[in-house]
């Protein structure tokens, strides 16, 4: 698949502080790319450089094969940008906000476009209410609706769910997934590993101004290692006995009554372990299969970089 966004060797420093050291990434058309990183990792700076809001010191960003800095107005017709805080006009109503953006994007029928988006984002009932009276979730929905005025191909979302309650967050995830299903390319930044796991086709980990790992969520999780079989025993003595019995499976003590071992073949290994334990008369109280999460990847990468 062709990359619709490319970032090549982008560098940025503010005075003496290096914010982006050498960042390169590609985003395929029609996919969701999540840029993960802690506060201050440089996510928003990279996003601003990608959208032409900030000039990088080195490197190049292209959108639809057009260099952003040299073709700003042309590429701005292809994308929209939604900043970290919902950038909506509090004094205007939701309807007026949408009409304003529709007029600035020179949409044919701004009022009709605004009403269609209010309906799509379930804001029709509050259309004449001042945005200052909207809830956090409504503001975010309006913000996203404003980003969709003019039907741009690409959406840049800077931490779209930060500050939202779990219900609003899940509702926004569904909206983002719907937009992807409609063929939009979405580049989002987030601090939430769960969000990247739920939404993204590809993830990039940004740390100290560098992409330290990139790939699909599944590939990222494999970075943290294989699935683990965890066994819990009634007593420490039984646990010790089991460790000797299961020596060939390379068990590790989790605590005094718990063991953990890698699962290369889920069913066969689990079956073999339980059979061996039953034969040795030291059955576990319970067992579970633990799949690595993105948190594990993040911890591992953080440790590696440190």
């Amino acid at each position: 698949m062709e990359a619709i966004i490319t970032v090549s060797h982008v560098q940025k420093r503010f005075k003496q502080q290096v914010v982006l050291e050498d960042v390169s990434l590609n985003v395929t058309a029609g996919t969701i790319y999540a840029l993960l990183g802690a506060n201050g990792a440089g996510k928003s700076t990279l996003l601003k450089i990608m959208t032409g809001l900030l000039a990088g010191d080195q490197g190049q960003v292209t959108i639809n094969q057009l260099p952003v800095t040299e073709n700003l107005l042309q590429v701005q017709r292809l994308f929209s940008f939604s900043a970290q805080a919902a950038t909506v006009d509090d004094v205007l109503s939701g309807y007026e906000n949408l009409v304003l953006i529709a007029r600035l994007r020179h949409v044919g029928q701004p009022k009709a476009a605004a009403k269609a988006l209010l309906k799509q984002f379930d804001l029709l009932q509050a259309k004449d209410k001042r945005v200052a009276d909207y809830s956090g979730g409504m503001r975010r929905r309006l913000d996203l609706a404003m980003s969709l005025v003019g039907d741009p191909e690409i959406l840049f979302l800077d931490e779209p769910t930060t500050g939202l309650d779990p219900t609003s967050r899940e509702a926004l995830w569904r909206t983002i997934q719907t937009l992807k299903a409609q063929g939009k390319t979405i580049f989002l930044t987030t601090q939430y590993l769960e969000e990247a796991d739920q939404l993204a086709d590809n993830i990039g980990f940004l740390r100290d101004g560098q992409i330290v790992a990139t790939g699909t969520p599944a590939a990222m999780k494999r970075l943290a290692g294989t699935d683990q079989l965890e066994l819990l025993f009634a007593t420490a003595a039984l646990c010790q006995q089991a460790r000797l019995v299961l020596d060939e499976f390379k068990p590790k003590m989790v605590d005094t009554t718990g063991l953990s071992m890698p699962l290369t073949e889920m069913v066969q290994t689990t079956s073999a372990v339980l059979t061996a334990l039953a034969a040795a008369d030291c059955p576990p109280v319970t067992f579970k299969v633990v799949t690595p999460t993105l948190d594990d990847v993040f911890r591992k990468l953080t440790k590696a970089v440190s």
Partner: protein
Amino acid sequence: MLKDTFTLAGRLIKHNLRSPDTIITVVLMPIMILLMMVYLFGGSMKIAGVAHGDYINYVLPGILLITIASGAAYTAMRINVDKTSGMFDRFKSLPISKVSVLGGQALASVSFMLISTGIVLLVGVLIGFRSSASVGAWVLVGLLLIGFAITITWLSVPFALAASSVDGASAFSYILLLLLFVSSAFVPVTGMPKPLHLFAEHQPMTHVIMTIRQLLAVQNVGNHGWLALLWLAGITLVAYIIGLRLYRRV
């Protein structure tokens, strides 16, 4: 570009109309100062060449400039709010001319300042301001007020963009008000102590006020007209260049 500028100015005019405190500060405060100067101090003022009871004719040009300066505080505040709230980022990410964003602010600001000035002038006429100036002189006064409003608006841009808070942004209007007090707005500069006299005589506010006052009094403007224009053009140019540079960086 013009269409976008008008669209963005329309947004800010809605802001002004929905903000009662803006109307109170920008329109009512200068009217109160006018009434106070005329009815509390006007009777006691003895100014050479100004007949008793004609103080309204002397003070009104300065009050008109105070009206414009009060409006500048709100211009700076709105620009700062758009900067800090991220609205500028949203506008800058749209496929529109970047100048139209500040242009919209300027157009809305100048329009609101001129409407307020018109209302204050009307109150002045109601309480006794009279002028036998020709239509041409009135047109020149109108153009000078527009020029002053444009200058003050663009001057507010760098302050608004450089300020880290709304309070900081709007505080610059106090400098303007101070300059108006240390000018010929309320009393002739000749009565001031020497250092203040020198400053007041040559600062731009005095030239603008004197030009308006002389035009409306059908008197010779002298060098005040050219000096006023030079000051306004120079300040606008410098503020415009600095403002655009700062805008590109925010």
